[in-house]
């Protein structure tokens, strides 16, 4: 047995009432891998990410982290979530805090870092995403692209093993998308494990190690970017990509 996968998703099911959104999801993510998830609106991409982060509770199947189920009674939710960060489509910066506090406070409360260490770390990361001139600003004084870069710094500050991105650029004006994508590309090159739900096909092709195409609550097809974008096997994948590539 080579490397044990960092995350294993096994027969994952999720229903909201009678509405089964995820029917049977199986995939592994290796440490250091960058995986993109693409698919039609409503196919269950966000739901999948939210299950991995346990913002939603799976109705069936299992999710293993370092080979251990995260659904067990003995798993401490806050520790797990600190290791599996999430970046949202709507940024969700804490409105009552400044940029610096947004990045510092979670470190202090969850990881119990002292203020000085948290601040050093926060400033370093904010500088990396180019937001250091704005440390004293409140979220509502920033543009969407700036907010998202702060949100990425905030997630990074927890020193996560995996970062989940749910359409991080969908809410942004086109001219700001690149700022955020560049930040993510730089992150990918650091060797961080990333699972990215995105509609940015070019980005998925250039940055990912693997692309997963979701359709109707299952993984319809997965493979390297070259396989999925260059030579898709399933008709659903072909149709989906054709529509997207025509648009671009």
């Amino acid at each position, binding site marked *: 047995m080579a490397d044990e996968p960092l995350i294993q998703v096994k027969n994952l099911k999720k229903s909201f009432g009678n509405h089964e959104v995820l029917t049977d999801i199986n995939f592994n993510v290796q440490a250091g891998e960058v995986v993109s998830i693409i698919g039609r609106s409503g196919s269950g991409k966000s739901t999948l990410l939210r299950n991995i982060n346990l913002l939603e509770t799976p109705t069936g199947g299992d999710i293993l982290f370092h080979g251990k189920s995260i659904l067990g009674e003995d798993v401490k939710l*806050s520790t797990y979530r600190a290791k599996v960060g999430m970046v949202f489509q709507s*940024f969700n910066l804490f409105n009552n805090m400044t940029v610096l506090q947004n990045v510092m406070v979670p470190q202090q409360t969850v990881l119990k870092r002292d203020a000085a260490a948290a601040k*050093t770390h926060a400033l370093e990361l904010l500088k990396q995403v180019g937001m250091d001139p*704005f*440390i004293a*600003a409140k979220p509502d004084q920033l543009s969407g692209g700036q907010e998202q870069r702060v949100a990425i710094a905030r997630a990074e500050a*927890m020193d996560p093993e995996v970062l989940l991105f749910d359409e991080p650029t969908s809410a942004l004006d086109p001219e700001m998308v690149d700022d955020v994508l560049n930040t993510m590309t730089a992150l990918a090159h650091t060797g961080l494990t990333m699972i990215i739900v995105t509609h940015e096909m070019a980005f998925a092709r250039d940055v990912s190690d693997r692309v997963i195409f979701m359709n109707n609550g299952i993984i319809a097809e997965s493979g390297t970017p070259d396989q999925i974008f260059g030579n898709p096997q399933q008709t659903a994948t072909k149709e989906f990509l054709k529509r997207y590539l025509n648009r671009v």
Partner: protein
Amino acid sequence: MKKHWVARLGVLGLALSLLLGGFAAKPVNAASDDNTFKVGMEAGYAPFNWTQNTDANHAVKIQGSHEYANGYDVQIARKVAKALHKKVVVVKTSWDGLPPALTSGKIDAIIAGMSPTPDRRKTIDFTNPYYISNLTMVVRKDSKYAKAKSIADFKGAKVTAQLSTYHYQAINQIKGVVKEPAMNDFPAMRVALESGTIDGYVSEVPEGITAERANPNLMYIHFAKGQGFKTDASDTNLAIGLRKNDPNKAKINELLATISNKERARLMNEAVDNQPSTEKSGNWFMAIMKQYGPMLLRGTGMTLLLALVGTLVGFIIGLLVGIIRTIPKPKKLGQRGLRAVINWLLSLYIEVFRGTPMIVQAAVLYYGAAQAWHLNMDRTTAALLIVSINTGAYISEIIRGGIISVDEGQFEAASALGMTHLQTMMKVILPQAVRNSLPAVTNEFIVNIKDTSVLSVISVSELFFSGETIAGQSFQFFHTYLIVSGIYLIMTFTISRLFRLIEKHLDGPKDYNVMNNQMQVETPKIGTES
């Protein structure tokens, strides 16, 4: 004597006595285990009872205050206490608070110019009358009516009386009288009489004496026996209210029998002489402030204390309840059950305290607890407790609304970062919820400033009760309440301004200047070291 100007409170009084009637089955023993005789009165109904600043003229200290009570009722109370070999203490209580204070044992007797009406007899006992306040007619000394001996002598006279009193109804007993429109207060009637607009006005004897003393041109008529107004005993008799089956009733009646009519008249004359009079000359504002400034100040202080503590403690209660009610559903069945029970209790608390008037809550807590469990609370403590719990119920809902209105994404981001519910609440949600709730909390504060006035029912002398006292004994209703309104307005205005400033401060500067903040980044220089 009926308290004409408090008729509005009758309904409330009835509600209270019904409510407390439930407790009444249980006999309450004497309020005072010690050797005191506690007498309840408003201390604001001259010449029967009033509040003064010194112990002059055998005044009696008002319990828990720096002020003294005096008046006809107080002098009677002193005699009664002496006969019972006890020390007299005055408990200043609003009119509505008197019956529950008596039945719950907070006081031993009501001597407050109260008439033994059949309604009141249902809940409390009365002694024989200690004063009979007959109707008289006040006239000019130099007029032809000065020698009148019978109401029939007023045929053709222009007569009036105070608005909405039985005095005014009594005018109908005079054949051929010219009934003038009713007037608002005695000072106005005295002026009208002196100027000749009217020939006389009907009042009770104490006002007749007062008028005589105040204006040497006026006098009141001593009607011959059987020639005066026909009145109902429940209007004219004043008696001492006691708890049912009070063993001292016989002893008190014995004592009252020894006080002759002549002695009673003497006591009343003395009371009229000693009653506080507000200077009519000069600036009315300065006159009231000079005489009653300290009382108004103390009342204002009490009102502020109640509103401030009530809002502050209520706010803390509201926060706690708000947090508890928004805890996410736990997974374990047992915990879920516990949570359901707690939530049910909390909503019960909110419904009960929002759904009932604060005056009833105060009476139940203060009088009801004393009656049912002999739990004797300090009245200020009870008042603070009630305002706090009551405000807490309102603010719980305000905070809950504030929490709900915080964007769902804030919760998700905090959870995704690994924060616990408590951490999420403390660091992220509550600061935003509190900020959003501030205008509503300010509103609660202002409501508290005004609504704590009902706490006079449990003898708390806040601003409105002080105003009532002053108006009742100076007879300057309009001017007194004008001043009181002014004080209320100053308080509420200041508070709303203050909270606006706090809101502004919490919001921070409106715009963000990158250039300014770049310098701030330069200073820490921590980022580059690691």
